[in-house]
């Protein structure tokens, strides 16, 4: 019983991390119509920025996390504003551009930091024990930060003029522009918001899991999986699906073992594609 609760808590904390990644991924798709193949790259970069800031500059870890989030957001902004924006309506071109950016990012990290995993540890250790459960403190902190970030993102998207503008651009770019919105101003900001979330997640999670130049691949795969499950472009769907995936991963890893666990997840997504191709909360196919 204790194991069941503890595994559930791990699943929820995994789900919160996945939600931050998938929300960024789905925002970019929903608003720009771009599938960001570099999303995993921003996660890795966030991890390395946090690592370099604490190790080489001696900054405290929370400061490093903020710098990682801002750094990845800044790179996302520049990339969208000066490269992606020129070809934003060409699906094949944006695919090549984002994939190319990912390869450049992971190779760059490989050249600068080397192929080995650096030793990057979460500064707080310890386990929280309660009646019938135990939970690593570091996971609790990550969970708390993720939930604050998710709530902030929801507030931003659903309760501010900026969010209203982003939702309008996602619904109908032509109408929004005709009413005076400026896609060229808002697209880079939306992209930066999403990549900043990926960088934030990387900075928070890599000291617990692992940090290496290639770890962006599974992150991209998981983001894809969640977004398909939740429905492409759906913010609510991505959030719910992220927690479902986190819980399935946690329970299947404990009770089924590693490779069978992954199989369970892919089986679920496969079934979803057959039964409900638009996802849990997805709209019917759009022009993308």
């Amino acid at each position, binding site marked *: 019983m204790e194991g069941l609760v503890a595994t559930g808590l791990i699943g929820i904390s995994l789900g919160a991390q996945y939600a931050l990644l998938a929300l960024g991924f789905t925002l970019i798709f929903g608003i720009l119509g771009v599938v960001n193949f570099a999303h995993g790259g921003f996660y890795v970069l966030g991890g390395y920025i946090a690592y370099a800031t604490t190790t080489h500059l001696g900054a405290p870890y929370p400061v490093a996390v903020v710098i990682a989030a801002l750094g990845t957001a800044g790179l996302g902004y520049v990339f969208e504003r000066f490269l992606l924006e020129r070809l934003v309506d060409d699906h094949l071109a944006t695919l090549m551009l984002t994939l190319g950016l990912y390869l450049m990012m992971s190779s760059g990290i490989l050249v600068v930091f080397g192929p080995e995993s650096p030793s990057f540890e979460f500064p707080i250790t310890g386990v929280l024990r309660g009646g019938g459960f135990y939970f690593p403190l570091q996971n609790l902190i990550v969970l708390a930060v993720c939930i604050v970030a998710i709530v902030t993102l929801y507030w931003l998207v659903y309760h501010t003029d900026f969010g209203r503008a982003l939702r309008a651009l996602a619904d*109908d770019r032509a109408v929004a522009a005709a009413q005076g919105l400026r896609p060229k101003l808002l697209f880079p900001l939306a992209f930066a918001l999403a990549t900043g979330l990926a960088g934030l997640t990387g900075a928070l999670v890599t000291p617990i899991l692992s940090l290496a130049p290639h770890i962006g691949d599974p992150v991209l795969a998981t983001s894809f999986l969640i977004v398909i499950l939740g429905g492409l472009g759906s913010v609510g769907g991505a959030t719910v699906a992220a927690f479902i995936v986190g819980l399935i991963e946690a329970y299947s890893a404990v009770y089924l073992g590693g490779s069978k666990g992954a199989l369970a997840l892919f089986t679920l997504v496969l079934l979803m594609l057959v039964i409900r191709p638009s996802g849990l909360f997805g709209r019917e196919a759009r022009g993308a």
Partner: protein
Amino acid sequence: MSPSGHETLEVVGLSKRFGGLQVFQEISFTLPQGEVLGVIGPNGAGKTTLINVISGKLAPTAGRVLLGRREMTGQPLHAVSRAGIMRSFQQTNTFSTASVGENIARAITFSGGGSAAWQAITGMLDEFELAPRLDEQSDKLPYGLQKMLGLVLAFVTRPKVLLLDEPAAGLEGRERGRVDSFVRHAREELGCSVLIVEHDMDLIRRLCPNILVLDAGRLLASGPPAEVLARKDVIDAYVGAVEEEVA
């Protein structure tokens, strides 16, 4: 003709070409502030493209667009919209998955309006039967109401010039009076000039003291509708569509 109001729309020698296809060429006209101008012509005459170019959606191949002597030529859509030239679409121009209320709120927010903008349209919302439907998703409305919502969205941005692309198309006969009413609201409450592209000749006669006739991308005729629609070349250009209307 010298511009009288501050917000006169001047179109000077405007041409648009897509590769080898000349859509229209050398179109010039002036739309003084607060006046209504009709644009008619057979399908493919270049009417919608003209609106696309004036509104900044497409850049012209040659010529200029000025609003109150300010250069609009080649400015992007949002800048032209902010300057006060607002267009409606031939199809509906609403955010289809958002509610009627959210649609209006967005149009107000994006154009920098406040709660006063809501008050300005309460009468119109009642008149067009949109008031009881503010919570409905806009693409679930009957087509005629979707088009009226599109016009209201253009109105709340407080434009100086409205470009209406076939506002009556798809409306039932009894609904068409709402377009007249909308144009009256726009002129009286916003002091706005209106350019109407339309096939409904009765509507054009009712609303427009002056019209332009486009045919195959050229300005064929201009003047009061009674005069222009009686001309032989105009009737010939319009064989079929308008023949019975003007006969």
